[in-house]
Structure formats: C-alpha cells, structure tokens
C-alpha cells in the first residue's frame, strides 16, 4: 500500500467533473481534483468555497450528482462512511466527530479494537492507543473520557484515530485550526513521515504559513468551482489569495497594532480577585478596562479556556471574587453574567455554539432573545435588520437568514456565532478562538471589527492559539502556563518574541523545578 511504484505517476485519487447539489443549489460544480501518492496537497479556498464538500464527496458522505471518482484507477462510489475507510481513505473531518462519552482509547480504536478470545482487550487497547498517540506527541490518559479534554486535544485524538489503519490517502480538514505551533510541528513531522512512506495527504488550512511550509501542490476552489492546480513555488501568497478571492487582495492589510490610538478608559469593567477553580485554573487576579483588548496567551492546556469559562460563568469558581462594573457577581451560571454584559463565545462551536437544526436567524438572535425572555420576542423586522447587518458586515454565506445553521460551512458558522454576541452589544466580550476556521480575508475583517468595538468602549478578552494574532489585536497580554497566570505584558513590551519568551522562560523554570 505504501509502495508508490505500484501506482507510478498515476494519481491515487482522481476526481473528475464532480458536482454536488444541495436542494438544487450547486455547492460544487464540475470540479476536478487529483491526489498523487507521496504528496501533501493543500485544498484552498474561502469559507464556503466547497472544500469540506469535496472531501465529503470523496468519502461518500455526500453523493455527487455528476462526476466520477477513481481510486487507484478504479471507479469507486462510496455510499456508507465505513467504506472509504476500508478502501484506505482515512479522514479527519473539520468538525471533530468522535463520541464524547467514550474514553480516548475507545474513540481512537473504535471498530479496530484489539480482541482476546472475542472480547475487547481493554489493556491492549489502552496500550495501542498510547502508542499511536505518541506518534503525534500526545500523552494523555487513554482511559480518560474524551469530553473531559479541550477541543485541541480532541482534534489530536481525531488525528490519531486516522492513523490506526494504514491508509493510502489521509484527509485532514483543518486539523490545525485549534492547535498551537508546537502541536502543529508534531503533526507536520508525522505528516512528512507518512508522505515519505508514499501516503497521499489532502490538507486544508486557512493558515498560509502552514500551507507553504508543508504543501507540495495546491488546488484552489472558489464558490464551488475549480480555479486551478498550482505548485507552491509558482504561486506566491498574494497570487494565492487573489486566486481564492477572485480579486486583488487589497483588504489584506491586516489591522496593525493600534493600542496607541486607543485610550483604554480607567474604569475597570471586570475585576477578578483570587478567582480560581480546582483542577481548572489556579487563583488569579485580572482587570479588564473599558475599550481595552486583553490577549490571553499560553500553550495548549495552560488554562486559557478554563479562565474564560470562570469569567463568563460557564463554570463556577470555587475561590475568589468576580466584580463587573463594581458589582460583585454571585454567579449562578452564564445568565447572571450575560445580564451584566459579559458575553462568551466558546471555542467549541459544535458542542457549545451552533444550534444545527435551527435557522441562521434563530442562531444569531438566540442570545438577544434569551436575555429578553420568552415572552418578548424580538420583532420580526428588528431581527431581520440585525441579521441582515451582520450577514453583510461579516460576509456570512449563504446570505440567507433561513438557511439551516448545520448546513453552513465551518467558517461561516463561526461568523454567525460571533454575530450572536456582537448584536447583544456586550460590555465585555470574551472571544475564545474567534477566528478558528476563518479564512484569511474574513480573519482580518473580524480583527477589524474587534478593534472598532474596542474603540467604541467595549472591553475584549481575546484568546487565540495564534500568537501573531494575539499580539496584533491586544493592548495587554496575559500569559498562562500550567494553569497559572505567570506574566502580564503591556504597551511596547508586546511582541511575538516577548510573549513567546514569557511562556518559554517560565517553562524553563518549570523544568528546573521538576528536575
């Protein structure tokens, strides 16, 4: 299977003229795509361009209305999800779809459980899972329940699951969207190993750096149509972005640091004193002022999300006090904080964000409606106006308020969730990985919106695994490590390097203490 000479120069996957329609609307029109053994092939395009749809057409989740798919020169037509996997196509879908209630080991080896005398051999299973996880540098307890881990770890578990079978094709749909640079490096290391073994790898990412680092070939989609197939050396960044957008990439001048122009108000919106929760985050102090963007940096598992969840009332603190606008909050859940104007946009959009079966409109006004109570529905016209405004402002596609949320592409869902909170005009907006899965154009757009809102006096807590982004938007950066707040950088002291060294310096201390 890893013998590339058997296939020679023929593509291992050859998709021709693929068309996929949803209720008569073409999500993909006549797209050709080839994947060669031993290459990393990046599939590029804006949010909603059709990348995930093309992948699902390949794996049989969606059935194309036209076109043929050749796998090793044989026409194939998968109708059930297991079939593609059995044929050697291992896929990590964009939305982690594992079983949250099962253990990590069970999730990884589901359907491939080691057996002894017919029964599942629990010990062998955990051992095998540990061994597979080690391949991508993940060391967590294989017996722990999946849902107890952060979305980033879950993503790594999903990737591990894809390594169980010796696949000839590995599909990774935005595998790095919530990973830190270290995990990305680990992932790329194994991707290169697999590539050198002759595995064909389909890779989707909105991080151009990553794409140029790993991709041997790129295919660009736009609006469900094929723009072209390119070699990275023949297509520079600007050209790539223009190919994706279909126009000159003018809007890409990203938000430059603008804390100078912003004069954060003196009134603290939120004050946390000794706030903490056992097992989640050690007690910390934090103040966030009006018109200030505070970034939160730290490695995977350093407690970023946990901190945000305490501030937003998603989890209850067991020590310390929390004050919003000078008033002490005795949190009984998110409602009490939402009432005080604290909004929290979770990183886990599938489990904690989207309401799949409802319309985009309902999803967008959900928080507003919840705050008003059931008896005072948002007037239809007001709702339409809100929805129309944000569909336009964040460029949500399709621009149809009645579209089902679950049918939107990942990036577009993310934009709707952001809009859900923006329409509530919060005092403090806590954004946990707000640009996860968002394309380059929209990312700049979102950063700009955040900056504008801060300029209007809103306080923002901005969490992202992407340091550049944190540094770019923040007036102050709080660094976490091992569930402790270890540093606070502000003003001119903020740079990717200083934040990195704040994380690393402390990491060294940690090692020194440990050894």
């Amino acid at each position: 299977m890893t013998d590339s000479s058997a296939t020679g120069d023929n593509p291992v996957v050859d998709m021709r003229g693929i068309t996929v329609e949803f209720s008569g609307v073409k999500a993909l029109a006549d797209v050709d795509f080839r994947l060669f053994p031993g290459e990393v092939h990046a599939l590029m395009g804006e949010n909603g361009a059709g990348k995930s749809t093309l992948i699902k057409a390949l794996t049989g989740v969606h059935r194309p209305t036209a076109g043929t798919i050749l796998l090793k020169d044989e026409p194939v037509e998968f109708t059930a999800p297991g079939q593609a996997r059995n044929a050697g196509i291992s896929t990590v879908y964009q939305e982690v779809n594992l079983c949250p209630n099962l253990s990590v080991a069970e999730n990884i080896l589901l359907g491939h459980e080691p057996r002894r005398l017919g029964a599942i051999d629990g010990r062998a299973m955990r051992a095998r899972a540990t061994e597979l996880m080690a391949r991508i540098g993940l060391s967590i307890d294989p017996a722990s329940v999946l849902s107890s881990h952060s979305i980033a770890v879950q993503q790594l578990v999903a990737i591990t699951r894809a390594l169980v079978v010796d696949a000839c094709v590995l599909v990774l749909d935005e595998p790095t969207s919530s990973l830190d640079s270290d995990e990305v490096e680990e992932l790329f290391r194994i991707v290169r190993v697999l590539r050198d073994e002759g595995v064909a790898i389909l890779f989707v990412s909105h991080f151009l750096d990553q794409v140029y680092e790993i991709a041997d070939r790129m295919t660009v989609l736009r609006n469900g149509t094929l723009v072209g197939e390119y070699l990275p050396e023949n297509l520079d960044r600007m050209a790539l972005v223009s190919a994706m957008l279909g126009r000159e990439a003018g809007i890409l001048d990203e938000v430059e640091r603008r804390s100078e122009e912003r004069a954060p108000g003196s009134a603290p919106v939120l004050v946390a004193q000794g706030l903490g929760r056992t097992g989640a985050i050690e007690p910390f102090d934090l103040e966030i002022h009006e018109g200030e963007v505070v970034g939160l940096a730290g490695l995977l598992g350093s407690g970023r999300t946990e901190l945000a969840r305490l501030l937003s009332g998603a989890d209850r603190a067991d020590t310390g006090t929390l004050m919003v606008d000078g008033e002490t909050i005795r949190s009984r859940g998110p409602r009490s904080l939402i009432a005080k104007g604290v909004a929290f946009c979770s990183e886990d959009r599938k489990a904690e964000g989207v309401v799949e079966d409802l319309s985009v409109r309902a999803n967008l006004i959900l928080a507003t409606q919840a705050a008003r109570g059931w008896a005072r529905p948002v007037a239809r016209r007001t709702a339409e106006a809100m929805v129309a405004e944000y569909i336009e402002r964040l460029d949500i596609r399709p621009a149809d308020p009645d579209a089902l949320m679950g049918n939107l592409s990942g990036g577009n869902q993310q934009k709707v969730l952001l809009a859900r909170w923006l329409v509530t005009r919060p005092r403090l907006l806590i954004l946990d990985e707000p640009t996860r899965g968002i394309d380059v154009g929209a990312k700049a757009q979102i950063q700009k919106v955040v900056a504008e809102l801060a300029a209007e006096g809103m306080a923002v807590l901005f969490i992202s695994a992407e340091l550049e982004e944190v540094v770019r938007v923040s007036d102050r950066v709080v660094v976490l490590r091992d569930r402790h707040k270890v540093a606070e950088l502000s003003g001119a002291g903020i740079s990717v390097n200083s934040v990195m060294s704040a994380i690393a310096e402390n990491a060294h201390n940690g090692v020194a203490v440990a050894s």
Partner: protein
Amino acid sequence: MIRGRLLWPLIALAGLIVLNVVFTPSFLELRIQDGHLYGSLVDILRNGAPTLLIAVGMTLVIATRGIDLSVGAVAAIAGAIGCTWIADGGDAPTAVLLALSVCILLGLWNGFLVSVLGIQPIIATLVLMTAGRGGAMLLTEGQIVTISNPTYRQIGAGFVILPIAILISLAVLLAVALLTRRTALGMLIEAVGVNPEASRLAGVRSRTITWTVYVFAALCAGVAGLMISSNVSAADANNAGLWIEMDAILAVVIGGTSLAGGRYSLTGTLVGALVIQTLTTTVYTIGVPTNITLLFKAVVVITVCLLQSPRVARAVSGRRKSPTLAPRSQKVAAG
C-alpha cells in the same frame, strides 16, 4: 421539511378512512340529533381527544430532547382523584381542581428529576410510570370507583355540537401553538432540544424551560385522565390511560417531530393523533382478530415511519433526486 413529511401520515389517514368505508359504508355519515353531531368520525374525535391532548404535552417534552413515560399513570391518578372525591360526596369543580393540582405536583417532580438532578428522562419518568398506578390503586382502594355526576360527565361525554373533550383538546392545541409560535418560547424550546449546552451558554433558561414542559405534560395528562374517567363515569386505576403514553409518543413521531429533540410540529402531532385513533378504530371496524391487533397497529406505524425516513424515501424514489440530506441524517452519515 415538516410539511413534506406530513404527506405520508395524511395518505395513511386517508387510506384508513377508505378502508373503513369499504367495510362499513356508513362510516362517513354524520347526523345531528338533539343538537349533537353523531357518527363514526365524531367518535374517533371523541375517543382520540385524550391521546391528542397528551400528545400535545408530549410534543413539547420531546422537543426538549426528553420523553415522558408517566403520562398514562398521571392520567389514572387524575381520574382516581376526581372520582373518589365525587364518590365521597364532593362537587365536580373541586374534584377537577384537586386532580389537576396533584398533576402539577407530579409534573414538578418529573421536571425536578430531569432538569435539576439531570436524570435521563426515560428513567426519571419511568419512576412515576410504575409508582403512579400504585398510587392510583391506593386512592381507589383497588376498586373501580363508579360515580354519577352530570357536571363531571360533561368533560368526557358532553357535547356542544361536537364532543366537549375534543373541543378542549383542540383549544389546548391552538393555545399552545399560539403561545409558542407567537412568542419566542417555541424557538427557545427547540434550541434547548437541539443543543442544551449551547443554549445554556447563550443565556437561555434551559432548566426552567425543561422543568416547565414536564409540568405542562403532566397537566395535559391530568385533563386527559379526567376525560377518560368522566366518559365512563368511573375510575379504573389499572386500565385508565393504559399504554396511552405509547400512542402519544407515536402520534408525535408520526407527526414528524424527531425523538432527538429540536424542531417540532403541532400540526404534525394533530395528524399523528388522528392516524393513531383512526387506526385503533379501524382495528375494531374491520374486525382484526384481537390477538393480532397490536401487531396490526405496529405494522402500520412502522410503515409510516419508514416512509418518512429520508433515506428510505431516497431509495424508494430511486437515485433520480439530488442527494438532499436533512441535517440529522447527514450527521448520522458523517458519524
């Protein structure tokens, strides 16, 4: 989407009616006597009123991703309280009030177990399903309590042109439809049903909403229990409302509301309840042997449900249509 799904239940309903007409040509006949409407169709409506009412409550419970198995037992308790109170010399209005108050308490109990303690709805309501009939037995001391109270009798057997029972059920259906669709309640209920955690984080009072729907379901069950006991002027703790939870759940499902929660359709529930009741009647009119009546019902129900399934629909209509996947089936396919 739901509208399309009602196609098959409506066809089933029409089919059942045709079947009845073939066996009893007078089936569709209606006559007015003493200002009352009489006929087989009216009987179906009257007998189906309790099921419809319970199904309305069940629809909301199911929309929140729950289920209430205790409604039959609650109906039995309501009937038992109403009848024993009257048998002991009490008046009808107090009997009704008393019975419904107890039902509200029972609903609060179910809601507490589900929304506060977080017990799985199927288990939580199973407690009352089994214990409830025991309670009703205690009230009636194991006897069938018969009464004769003309006022009480109106609830289940009275007429204002149409049977009062069906008027009550339809009124409740209409009221719930207006209450949930004219306000934001319906949307919030659906949001809680589709994604409880996302709803909680968005500030939806998921707990209160969940709690309330169980109380409402119990209240509906209580009124249904009064209808049943009033219709026969007796409380039978063992048999009143027996298996009615199953009929109600089937009515909801046939109506296109998914057991996985979320989007619900009250119109669908109305059609579903009519299908179920007509089916029950059909079993008698066409003389299906009693030992296979349940089997007969099951076959019809499963056929309707199968035809509604997008996957089967696709297989039936061949591959001609484009693969439009409903979101739920897509999740299954991807999972």
